[in-house]
């Protein structure tokens, strides 16, 4: 039991990261239908920004994090401007921006590889190494920090979608683009905002995960797959689904590594198998969208 509780904190922390990436997909898919596979690269760019500001320039953590998130918002907006808006404006099929974003994924990754080289880069922990015990639950400072920040982001996202007029605009666009436009909602502003928010959220995930795995130019695609798996498990309809999917995925992974009698390498296959099963058996995910 002790063993399980120890594992639970670590798994919950990774689950929050997957959940954040799933949320990043979700805020873009809801209003536009565009699956942006470059979210992993966004997280990677934020990790490298963390390396530059926190490791290189020794900025204080809160200041550095705020600067990185601000930068990510601009980057998301710019990505939308370059690769999505011209296609949506021209009335291209929804697959066109998805493929253009795949091209952007390669552009992002290769630019980082060109600028930083192939070696992993260290990003510091906000509270250093250390172990925190809260009753029966114990884990590293970073695990609790990840859970705390993710809880804040999810709380904010929930509040935005459920309680603000802008959130209702997003929902209206998700339900029916044309009707929403007729009601006076500015479609291109909603699209731009959704990409900026998606990038910001992916950036937070990138900064949080970077101290554990180091910033590396190939870290993006695995994160993108795990985030998408979390999204598919939870369902694209609701914010809570993204978090639930992320947590379920992380626990499935960690429990397989710890307790299942298979070689450790096969544990990498867990998200892939879950992704295939959920896509095929339950494509709407566990939580359905509210009607």
């Amino acid at each position: 039991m002790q063993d399980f509780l120890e594992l639970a904190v670590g798994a919950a922390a990774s689950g929050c990261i997957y959940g954040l990436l799933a949320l990043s997909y979700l805020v873009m898919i809801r209003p536009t239908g565009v699956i942006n596979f470059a979210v992993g690269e966004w997280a990677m760019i934020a990790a490298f920004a963390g390396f530059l500001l926190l490791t290189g320039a020794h900025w204080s953590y809160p200041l550095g994090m705020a600067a990185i998130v601000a930068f990510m918002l601009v980057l998301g907006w710019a990505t939308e401007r370059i690769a999505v808006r011209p296609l949506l404006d021209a009335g291209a099929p929804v697959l066109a921006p998805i493929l253009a974003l795949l091209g952007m994924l390669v552009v992002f990754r290769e630019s980082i590889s060109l600028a930083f080289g192939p070696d992993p880069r260290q990003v510091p922990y906000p509270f250093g190494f250390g172990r925190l015990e809260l009753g029966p639950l114990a884990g590293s400072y970073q695990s609790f920090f990840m859970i705390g920040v993710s809880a804040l982001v999810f709380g904010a996202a929930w509040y935005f979608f459920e309680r603000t007029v802008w959130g209702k605009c997003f929902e209206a666009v998700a339900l029916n683009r044309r009707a929403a436009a007729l009601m006076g909602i500015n479609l291109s502003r909603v699209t731009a905002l959704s990409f900026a928010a998606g990038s910001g959220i992916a950036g937070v995930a990138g900064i949080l995960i970077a101290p554990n795995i180091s910033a590396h130019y190939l870290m993006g695609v695995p994160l993108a797959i795990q985030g998408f798996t979390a999204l598919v498990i939870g369902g694209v309809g609701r914010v809570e689904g993204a978090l639930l999917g992320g947590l379920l995925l992380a626990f499935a992974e960690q429990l397989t590594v710890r307790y299942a009698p298979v070689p450790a390498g096969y544990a990498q296959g867990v998200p892939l198998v879950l992704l295939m099963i959920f896509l095929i058996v339950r494509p709407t995910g566990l939580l359905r969208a509210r009607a």
Partner: protein
Amino acid sequence: MKSIALGLGAAIALSALAFLLGDYHNDVYRKLLLWIALALSYNFVFGICGQVTFSHFAFYGIGAYAIVILLFTAAFPLPLAIVCGVALCVALALAVAIPATRLEGFYLALATMAFAQLFIVVLNEGGAITGGTGGLASYRLPPVLGLDLSGRAYTVVIVLVLIGTAAVLRRVDHSWFGRACRAVRDNPEAAAAMGVDVARTKVIAFTLSSVLAGIAGMAYAFVDNTVNPPIFGLENAFLVLFMVIVGGSGRHAGAVVGTVLLYLLPFILSPLIGQHHALVFGVLMVTAILLQPRGLIGLYDRLARR
């Protein structure tokens, strides 16, 4: 009759080229021919039938690993190994296609990406059967009908695989099935209303192109006489998609043009930007989608019409 003569002429011309090139260029040339075969078959499922999949390169790998394992671990005779390898590709393609092609748009792409990644995991963890991360190496193609097929003679085999792939795809594309595929791509509801079985069309298109990729993979197994997991990774699945889009999706000539350009580009660019040619691929891909959705071949059409 005319198309047989055309195929024969192309086969002779492409084979003759192999004998004019030096050893190094011959190696580059063979791989180019295999990439063209892959791009042609990918163009069928993506460009003509409109299904985005990322499992194409995995099937190339399945073909390559299958032939090596069947020939050398299981010690099958060559013809039987080829038949069993193709049968394996058909079975796996159907197993993926029947559930997965129900998925719309990019969800299919992600399901097939999961399959492709799972294939890599299995290769890495396969122990003695797949050779793990190092793969399988130091085997040689046994003599076929008493002929030693190595060096330039093997390039002729690859030319035949390419011509065969092109011939099958051309034939299928010009049949009612090719038109059914285009109808499914352009408007599935309308296709269904016209009596096209949409689900079956997608399954057959996916299976056909995957099996052709598997056969190209079998030919690849004896190009370098080594197969290992990194060769069949996701990178190359992206690349074949980029080749088809940059060249012009839905057109056989487009697939060929795109492949030749993107395959040869790194050789031209490497003195300038080293190993970072993928950056150029990404930029080309985005530019093509934004400015020229019909690809280079569409550009050519427009210029030719003037």
